[in-house]
């Protein structure tokens, strides 16, 4: 928690930047003077040298040179500082959603600019919005779209998106026209409004906005079904909006629409929707194919993802197809293949860049909305605005209720009243509506200003009123929240099992249902598509194994990030280990036995006792993949015990050294804080830690997928060596191979470890550290 002086400092910085941003933006209108003066000087200089020589300008101000990028950067900086600032005020961010606060900031900035007497820049210019601000948000949503729930509810989502939006548009447009026409005795500006402009207005205002939905729903953590319903609807209604908008805009000038036009409109809708998806899918496949060959230039992998997606969006926009749907299709299609091909670092890069861009975009959009509100142009008409707001709400509610009634006949999991309420209430409007309104031509639509005012009012109403109250309402109605549980290996196993089971039952019934086709698609995917688009061995990797490896990676990374366990995660420490579930087989001292075959009996017994006790303790502490903790026990007891154990190890080491190096233990002793070999039995992946006494152990994970030719051979070598051991070896004590001399086993094992540590496709954190250091001083 930031203390008071820090908060004060940050607020001060924010204010300074606000002021600072006003001046350059204001200076936008007066760069000409300085420029003129400069050019005058140049002309003067060239004209002749008989003029008085001016002193050489040591320091000069040339704002115009950097004006545009500077202003953009300033806006972005402002947006980010605002985001920072909100989280420093704890109670506020709990009550008011971020989007509202940002709009207020935008209003303030717009107000400041206006007060300074300068002209407000046209920030929500449609080109800027549609080409720069919107794509990152949509790409982020599309790339991380949860495919399974989306596909399962696709029918419902399409119904809401297509039929719902059409209903909204016509209801609002039609009734608005009717309302405008009443009071014939008192002619007002409203009577100029024709039917088609009304319908156009209706179609602009009726689309649920993905940006606003994302912004608000992200904070309420609602259950997955509702989230995907509202969000999916907001994404897929873009096609409808595009078609309706162009249709009405085109014919509003003419004044009438024939049946032929309606028919063409329907065809156009299909073309726009399907075409958009196709364009996106093609670019997605291209991206996946390209990523197959990037194993040697990992650094530009994220770039391919971004550029192909952006080009998909632009290509769709070029043909007036639905850019949003194209972007979603591109992200969703490329993701499984790209993720199988790219390195882990690229994956992290992509994730963070997308989140960063979409976050900044969203913030900017809301701020600009505030600024654009201040600027106007406004034409406030009480009747029009209030009727619009009321009609929007009513239309939404009727639409959702009616559609749910029809949809529930076809759904297995029916939508309850609570669900319907949330879906209706979550229909927020946002900046897309405003931009579309802004795009209208003033000549064709003389009442454009009135439209804009009404659109802004509806946006404000939905974002402020609905956005702020949805959280308490969700609590009040006890709507199911998002399950926080992480995906576990058991759930994955059972999900797959259930899929196969249901497919089997469908086959037995002879019913070619939903599971049957899904299974066929999966098999096609596995047989043909994966082979083309995924590099190397990964193309044959079954999903379960891929999932499992991903889990292990995550665990390894968590272990490193937690400082090797010095700070324990507060999750439930469960003390169940491998040996608890393995049926009791061979005595654990077997490897020690093999190792000590050449020793006198007495010594052997002693060593065996020591080793056995240490092994057992290790075994009981080592956890294999466990979703709660992956730590060796030493850390539990704290530093005091650590020292005791270290002493014991020193003792053990001395004893072993006495025995003429017959047994070299290249691995650190079991309870040493430096060595946790948390390894699953005969698992292709190996974690090995650097033997550094008192620093953070570094884990270098070798992925099973051979991304460089070297790693394959070495992994095989390693695996072969492992298979000699017993199954559940908690600790890798490498026994020397029988009669080998004193130094050899250690060397051999050491070098093997060296090789393993070096064969990574990405440079590890400490690739050149000294690996020959003894593990104990």
């Amino acid at each position, binding site marked *: 928690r930031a203390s008071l002086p820090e908060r004060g400092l940050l607020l001060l910085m924010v204010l300074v930047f606000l002021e600072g941003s006003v001046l350059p933006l204001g200076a936008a209108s007066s760069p000409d003077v300085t420029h003129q003066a400069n050019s005058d000087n140049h002309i003067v200089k060239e004209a002749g040298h008989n003029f008085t020589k001016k002193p050489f300008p040591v320091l000069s101000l040339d704002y115009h040179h950097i004006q545009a990028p500077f202003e953009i950067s300033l806006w972005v900086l402002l947006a980010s500082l605002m985001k920072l600032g909100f989280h420093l005020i704890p109670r506020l961010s709990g009550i008011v959603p971020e989007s509202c606060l940002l709009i207020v900031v935008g209003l303030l900035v717009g107000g400041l600019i206006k007060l300074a007497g300068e002209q407000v820049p046209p920030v929500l210019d449609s080109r800027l919005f549609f080409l720069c601000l919107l794509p990152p948000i949509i790409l982020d949503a599309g790339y991380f779209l949860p495919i399974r729930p989306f596909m399962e509810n696709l029918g419902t989502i399409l119904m809401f998106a297509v039929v719902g939006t059409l209903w909204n548009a016509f209801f609002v447009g039609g009734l608005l026209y009717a309302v405008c026409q009443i009071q014939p005795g008192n002619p007002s500006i409203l009577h100029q409004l024709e039917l088609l402009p009304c319908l156009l207005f209706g179609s602009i205002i009726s689309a649920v906005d993905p940006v606003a939905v994302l912004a608000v729903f992200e904070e309420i953590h609602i259950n997955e079904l509702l989230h995907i319903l509202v969000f999916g609807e907001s994404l897929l209604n873009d096609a409808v909006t595009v078609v309706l908008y162009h249709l009405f805009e085109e014919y509003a000038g003419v004044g009438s629409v024939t049946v032929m036009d309606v028919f063409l409109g329907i065809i156009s809708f299909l073309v726009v929707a399907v075409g958009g998806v196709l364009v996106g899918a093609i670019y997605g496949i291209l991206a996946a194919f390209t990523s197959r060959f990037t194993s040697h230039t990992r650094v530009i992998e994220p770039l391919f993802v971004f550029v192909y997606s952006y080009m998909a969006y632009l290509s769709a926009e070029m043909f007036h197809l639905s850019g949003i749907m194209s972007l979603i299709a591109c992200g969703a299609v490329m993701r499984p293949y790209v993720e199988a091909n790219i390195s882990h670092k690229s994956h992290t890069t992509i994730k963070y860049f997308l989140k960063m861009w979409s976050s900044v975009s969203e913030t900017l959009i809301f701020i600009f909305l505030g600024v654009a509100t201040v600027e106007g142009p406004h034409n406030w008409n009480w009747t029009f605005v209030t009727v619009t707001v009321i009609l929007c709400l009513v239309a939404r509610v009727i639409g959702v209720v009616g559609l749910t009634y029809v949809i529930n006949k076809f759904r297995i999991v029916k939508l309850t009243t609570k669900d319907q309420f949330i879906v209706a209430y979550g229909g927020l409007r946002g900046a897309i509506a405003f931009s579309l309104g802004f795009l209208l031509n003033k000549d064709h639509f003389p009442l454009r200003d009135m439209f804009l005012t009404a659109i802004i009012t509806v946006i404000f109403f939905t974002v402020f009123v609905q956005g702020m109250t949805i959280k308490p309402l969700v609590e009040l109605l006890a709507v199911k929240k998002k399950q926080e549980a992480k995906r576990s290996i058991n759930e994955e196993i059972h999900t797959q099992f259930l899929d196969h089971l249901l497919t089997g039952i469908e086959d037995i019934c002879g019913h*070619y249902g939903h599971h049957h086709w899904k299974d066929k698609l999966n098999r096609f995917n596995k047989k043909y598509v994966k082979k083309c688009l995924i590099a190397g061995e990964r193309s044959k990797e079954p999903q379960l194994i891929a999932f499992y490896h991903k889990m292990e990676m995550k665990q390894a990374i968590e272990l490193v990030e937690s400082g090797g366990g010095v700070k324990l995660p507060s999750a439930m420490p469960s003390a169940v280990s491998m040996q*608890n*579930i393995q049926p009791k087989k061979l005595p654990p001292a077997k490897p020690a036995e093999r190792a000590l075959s050449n020793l006198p009996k007495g010594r052997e017994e002693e060593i065996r006792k020591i080793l056995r006790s240490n092994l057992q303790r290790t075994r009981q502490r080592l956890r294999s993949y466990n979703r709660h903790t992956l730590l060796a026990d030493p850390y539990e007891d704290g530093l005091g015990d650590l020292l005791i154990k270290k002493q014991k190890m020193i003792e053990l080491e001395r004893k072993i050294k006495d025995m003429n190096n017959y047994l070299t233990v290249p691995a650190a002793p079991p309870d040493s804080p430096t060595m946790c070999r948390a390894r699953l039995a005969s698992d292709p992946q190996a974690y090995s830690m650097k033997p550094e006494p008192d620093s953070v152990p570094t884990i270098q994970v070798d992925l099973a997928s051979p991304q460089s030719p070297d790693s394959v051979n070495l992994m095989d070598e390693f695996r072969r060596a492992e298979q000699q051991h017993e199954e559940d070896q908690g600790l890798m004590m490498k026994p020397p191979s029988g009669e080998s001399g004193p130094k050899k086993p250690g060397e051999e094992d050491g070098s093997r470890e060296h090789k393993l540590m070096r064969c990574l496709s990405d440079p590890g954190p400490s690739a050149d550290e000294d690996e020959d250091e003894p593990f104990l001083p």
Partner: protein
Amino acid sequence: MGALQSSPGQHEYGDLAEKTGFSFRQIGVLHTRFKQLSHNEETLQRDHFNEIPDLACNPIRAQIVGAFFDRRNFRENGEGTVQEIGFEEFLVVMSHFRPPSLHMTQEQRESVRREKLRFLFNMHDTDNDGTITLEEYRHLVEELLSLSETLEKNTAKSIADAAMLEVASISMGHMEPDEFYEGITFEHFLKLLNGFEIESRMNIRFLRMDTTTLCK
């Protein structure tokens, strides 16, 4: 409705409908399918299932077929397996996949969940001893991975081990080093799949099935 009047024994259907919860129409369709599968005989045997071509590429085919002949699924508290089943047993097994009705109380929903999870449990617990041991779990994972060409036995084993470990840590919490976790009991299984929402996932749409789509 005309088709139904010609079907045998509507009173039979009444009993079946009550026992399994299917509607008359659904029962009629399933009966047609049953007759198709059994070549118009009275009982179905395992070989009849093996004739279904689509089922051949299913990795867990053996377990699915086995479930039909498992007396534990006949809701009569029986045990062991049978060699052939009649239409009633066929229908009872199918009824495990019926979607739950919209208006259900919490207890009804809970009992539907238990029933479906019990079906899954019986499929895993092949030796009928009431627990899923590590060996059985390993077998399950191997079956799931059996379709892939490169079956790495060790990976399958380690996946099963990891999964078992997780169940143990969820159910038992803390265990002493020399304690041994026998296997997953039904209660542990329930606890494990608590968040799985099986009552909405383990369903087949028996709604729209007509005989024209039933093909071999």
